[in-house]
């Protein structure tokens, strides 16, 4: 063995160590963040602020789920409202028609959404780039129209969740927001952990390879079609779980309030704003975006002059111009260059 190749091996081992140390740090950060958020609602008693916490955590989870397909696998879907709607309608219909617990409905909705994602993925993943995105928009709009015309699911009138006993089994809590905050926090944590796990798994590497250069990935043995299908199913599953949660939280759904195009945008926006294809991007984006939407609407929206929307739009534009790679750019340290020997080795 030459000294040079020993140098490469050492360099790679060092990089590997550093990578795993960074991953452990990420995990520690998560623990701290989750602890802080768990304590927060005990200090902040205002239900309006608690409501914003629920929404922020919910959109963190939803955007994190979207990020699996859109960020890591690079398949930009603007039709994820379809999975959100499937989740919301599955648990609500099961609950109102058959008295099935929303927890089971959540899992069922997730499963159905994952199946739908696979069925849709079969033709759609033959499309590339913008054509794929357009197809996702179209199919979500079609779902909206279908649900509007489906009397069993309440049609345009929607479904009001009947007030059942306030407990965990029914996922209803009257005025109490704390259980919703913790459920949403659990959802956000689980999606984060899944993403974290994926980052260092075979799928994770395949997905990023598919995103960066599909042709090169394929030449190295990555099965592109299967990669996309797996990412889509996983992403759809968690978005649908979020949809069931939303239905329980609002206690009323109609096609326009769960299948509307603006939801598809709201899943993508936090990830894009915070840092697409990153672990903390969706959370960061949601923490900025959701309170901003709520506060501007509540405290400037009453004028009827759209001031809230102007502020909201201007801030998004500012961030996009200032940090096009996302807000995560403020936090990420530039990686130190690898030892010289490894560098030379890599180039020779």
């Amino acid at each position: 063995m030459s000294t040079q190749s020993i140098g490469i091996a050492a360099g790679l081992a060092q990089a590997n160590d550093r990578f795993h140390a960074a991953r452990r740090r990420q995990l520690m950060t998560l623990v701290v963040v989750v602890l802080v958020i768990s304590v927060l609602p005990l200090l902040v008693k205002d239900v309006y602020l608690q409501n914003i916490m629920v929404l922020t955590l919910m959109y963190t989870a939803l955007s994190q789920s979207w990020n699996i397909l859109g960020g890591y696998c690079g398949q930009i879907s603007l039709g994820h409202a379809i999975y959100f709607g499937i989740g919301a309608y599955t648990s609500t219909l099961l609950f109102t028609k058959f008295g099935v617990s929303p927890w089971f409905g959540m899992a069922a909705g997730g499963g159905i959404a994952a199946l739908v994602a696979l069925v849709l993925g079969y033709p759609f993943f033959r499309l590339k780039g913008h054509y794929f995105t357009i197809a996702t928009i179209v199919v979500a709009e079609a779902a909206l129209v279908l649900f509007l015309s489906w009397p069993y699911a309440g049609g345009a009138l929607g479904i009001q969740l009947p007030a059942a006993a306030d407990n965990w089994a029914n996922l209803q809590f009257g005025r109490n927001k704390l259980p919703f905050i913790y459920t949403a926090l659990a959802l956000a944590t689980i999606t984060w952990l899944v993403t974290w796990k994926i980052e260092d798994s075979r799928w994770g590497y395949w997905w990023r390879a598919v995103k960066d250069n599909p042709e090169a990935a394929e030449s190295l043995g990555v099965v592109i079609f299967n990669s996309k299908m797996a990412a889509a199913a996983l992403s759809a599953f968690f978005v649908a779980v979020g949809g069931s949660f939303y239905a329980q939280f609002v206690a009323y759904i109609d096609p326009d309030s769960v299948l509307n195009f603006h939801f598809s945008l709201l899943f993508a926006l936090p990830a894009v704003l915070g840092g697409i294809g990153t672990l903390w991007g969706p959370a960061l984006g949601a923490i900025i975006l959701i309170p901003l939407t709520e506060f501007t609407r509540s405290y400037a929206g009453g004028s009827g002059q759209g001031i809230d929307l102007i502020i909201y739009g201007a801030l998004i534009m500012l961030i996009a111009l200032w940090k096009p790679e996302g807000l995560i750019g403020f936090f990420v340290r530039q990686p130190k260059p690898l030892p010289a020997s490894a560098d030379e080795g890599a180039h020779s």
Partner: protein
Amino acid sequence: MTKSIHPTLNRRTLLGAGAIALASSVTPALAQQKEVLIGAIFPLSGASAQVGVDAKHALETAADIINGNYNFDLPAGKGGGLAGLGGAKVKLVFADHQADPQKGRAEAERLITQDKVAAIVGSFHSAVAATISATTERYQVPYFSADNSSPSLNRRGLKYFFRAAAHDEMFTVAMFDFLDTMRKRGEKVNSVGLFHEDTIFGTDSSNAQRDTAQARGYNLAVDIKYRANSPSLTAEVQQLSSANPDVLMPSSYTTDGILLVKTMSELGYKPKAIVAQAAGFAEKSLFDAVGDKLDGLISRASFSLDLAQKRPVIGKVNEMFKARSGKDLNDNTSRQLMALLILADAIDRAKSVEGPAIREALAKTDIPGEKTIMPWTKVAFGEDGQNMNANPVLLQYLGGKFVTIFPESAAIAKPKWPMN
């Protein structure tokens, strides 16, 4: 506050500043006892923003009537403020729901817990009213539905839901009562054609119309549901044209209504008669755009300005509203204005700003029709919170303005039939 004070300030100015700060922190607390806060949740941005802005003008006009020293023979219309609460003034807190049920719910919660509003008025969209009223029920604060027309709202067993105006089924009954009358006069009114959008409004409206038409022996010549905000209605209008019903009954919002009329004109289809479920066909902007093609159109309404001839107070209220908004009162704004007056009257009688007390007072409401600006016989709520005495009227667009043609007790002109 103290941080921003310049270091060279002497002690006296500092004390002065402190005193002012103290005074300003005390005044709101004192003022609060003289104010009754009422929340108003409407769409103030998005596609229906104009409705919300008009609602704001209507409610502010109503607040003027309550707070100012007028001598109107209306609920809460005499004297300044609410006598039952020592002359307390009504103050409105507006919130925007952006037509999103989730946001409506969150805003209701905020107004109740942060602003401590005594009651909430809303909300134009029935889907949003569903979540607002579920929230107000939980907090035991009355929700006064000003202009939601879905009949499902008062069928949920809510104790804190009240609606003084008619819902779609009551409107539909009035429309068919009118058709029955025309039949008795010997006009040929055998078939109706439904044309409705696919959201909650069009669905509720067409369901009621379909049932009533069948129950009263009208032939359903055509029944078209179209996608709201559709870019083209050509195929739909062709269907209407070939079926050519004796009466066309559209349930459409403004932009769809304009597109419908334009498309009918382009395709040369002249319906024999139109009896519309208000909405877009009550909006000034629709008549500004295509009014010339609609001479003889009939629309149901909650309000008729013609009534001002019999009840001068309506004219005065309309002038006050017009000074604010530049428009006459219409179907929506009249209901919004009236809602706040009825609510204020109940708070006045309750002598309290507590939800349960206001609820009790609302349940005991008994206001004769002459004391409103509406063509109603009276305001009294049933167990479900619905006022069943909110008689609608039918208006016909003749020579560039609306005249009341039905019922006969309110009519000032004979209907032009058929319109084309």
